[in-house]
């Protein structure tokens, strides 16, 4: 059966899209994008106090009161000012957790009981396997919250407070006294 002009054009378009998809796949741009939870592009700018307060409460909910949350919030504020898409994500995060708190009968996340705060942020912890696939397919913002808020808190924790809580005087990156250290005395 001879090809009509329409079928030829449709077939060509499909072939073109398939070839472009295969090329993108081969160049490994599509796959990482799908799974990375990369930030959507949006303007940089200062974080509103309400958003910073929600992030502060999130840090305490994840790490409990043994850490001073100030430097985690500094980190979120810095990213909001310097990284495209970060501020918008933190604002959506604020709306998301406030919505979850209200759904549970609390006026908002910041004023929610600690147990509820912990439950809300625990639901946003990085996921694996099917749970991760579900997020990527149906709840991309949740995947972004997991990566850019919840995981970020643990990354900063591993780079900072975890050292002190396990017995170090200070974490790497802080100036420390060399001579006292050589004598085995406290360095910070």
């Amino acid at each position, binding site marked *: 059966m001879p090809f009509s002009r329409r079928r030829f054009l449709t077939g060509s378009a499909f072939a073109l899209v398939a070839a472009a998809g295969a090329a993108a796949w081969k160049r490994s741009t599509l796959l990482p994008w799908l799974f990375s939870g990369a930030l959507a592009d949006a303007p940089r700018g200062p974080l509103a106090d309400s958003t910073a307060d929600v992030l502060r409460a999130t840090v305490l909910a*994840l*790490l*409990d009161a043994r850490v001073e949350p100030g430097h985690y919030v500094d*980190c979120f504020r*810095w*990213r909001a000012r*310097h*990284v495209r898409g970060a501020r918008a994500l933190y604002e959506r995060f604020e709306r998301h957790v406030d919505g979850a708190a209200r759904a549970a009968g609390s006026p908002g996340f910041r004023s929610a009981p600690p147990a509820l705060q912990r439950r809300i942020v*625990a639901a946003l*912890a*990085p996921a694996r396997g099917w749970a991760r696939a579900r997020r990527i397919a149906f709840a991309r913002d949740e995947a972004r919250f997991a990566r850019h808020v*919840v*995981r*970020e808190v*643990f*990354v*900063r*924790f*591993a*780079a900072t407070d*975890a*050292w002190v*809580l*396990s*017995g*170090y*005087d200070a974490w*790497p*990156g*802080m*100036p*420390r*006294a*060399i*001579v006292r*250290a*050589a004598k*085995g005395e406290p*360095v910070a």
Partner: protein
Amino acid sequence: MSARRVAIVGSGMMGSTLAYELTRAGLEVTVFEKGPDFPYPHRERFVETVEYGYDDPARSIAPDLRRMTNDGSYARELQRESVLRLGGAGTAWTGLATRMSPNDHLTKSRYGFGMDWPLSYAELEPWLCRAEAQLGVSGTDADNPWAPWRSRPYPLPPFELTPDDAWLAARLEAAGIRVHSTPQARTRAAYEGRPACMNVGECQVCPNGARYSSTHHLRLAMATGRCRVRTDATVRRVVTDATGRARGVAWCANGDGREREHAADLVIVAGAAFESARLLLLSRDAKHPDGLGNTHGHVGRHLVFHHIWIGHLHVHDALFAGRVGFWTAQSDQFVDPPGRGKHGGVKIELPSKPSLTHVRDAANAGSLADALRAFEVVKHCRQVGMHAESDTTGAKFVALSKDKDRYGDPVAHVHYDSSDFDRATYAYARTLFDRVADAAGAHERFFPELEGFGAFAHYMGTHRMSRDPKDGVVDTFGAVHDTPGLYAIGLGMFVGSGGAVTPTLTGVALAIRAADAIARGARA
């Protein structure tokens, strides 16, 4: 002919050194750097990466311009290792500044492998002193019985061993392994405009210049008013005239892609070993149909890496590795061992750092309890590295790839297969690691497989030195044998791996020596 205008391709450790020395001698220098600007001191970078854990893409070169291909047994992607930005790898190194020993220059005649250097340790020694003065090296040989002789003391006193290094040194001493201080281009005291080290423990991204960065001297060169730096500028080839003499470079601004020519009396190719070889191969002309410097087919052929295996061990005592910044001890006891020739020499490196795997586990935890559990082992473990020399074979080389960059030029392709010599060196390094672990009383140990080594930018030999043009690409001053007006200076000049020690100091010494010769020629 008097050379006044010099084009330098590459702004890394050697390119910056050359720019500084040549502008000081009154020459006009233009430095071409493929990567972006990278402000110095690297405070901003420190804040981004250490304080806020952010790797700013604006500080990285576009993927197609950093692209290279590699195959063979080297397990890592080399294109991820290259540091393409103003100052190159000299902005991101650990600062270890060790000297090759006299025997490292004579591996063929002493041990039957590789080729002897056309330059002896005694000939190079005065420039090693100058290199140490330039980098501001803190160190002492008083505790190191294997240190090669020197004519001048280190410019700065050494750093004390960290408590965990001292703990390990005592145990290794009892087991017959001597640990000593390590020379490092990190300021034990304020030095020539650089502050004393404050021990932030993140040497690879030092915020204040205490750890030497190549951009320190590049800035000084620019301050003379005789050094112009072009960042985001890709040099596509060296331009030669009808006589085959280098007359400049053809380059493109990465933003617009329009090719321009820059005229110069001398051209110095001073990139990393892969990129320098690639540029020589790309720069074909009627007199050099296989590329500049390649009349005898040596460009790219004698590539060699250092093979650096980083293991870690766990002990019952709390060591708190990483408590103090971060590189104070090593052992040169095995860099020139009795069996050398059957296998390579090995330097024992003792970075005072815990195993980063456990730090990462804590970062990947989903709860505080998991994070603390993962972190509990951190204070009980530390890294131990084996830094080994290697040999050259036909299975280690750089050529042009089938892949191309945005300008249509082939990118570098590296083929690297470990040799029997490397396998024997691995077995030797593994034995040493086990001796260290046993002496430390380690209840758990990890050492990588043969191909689990990293080269960490120690790439050498792609345009090696020779006295006879038939044996190499450049003379001992970096002048390309078959192309007047062209120099290729950097770790690519090395003949073999230069022993088991960190190559940077020797590379800087070679660059200063070459700059002296070029300046003398210009004055003549």
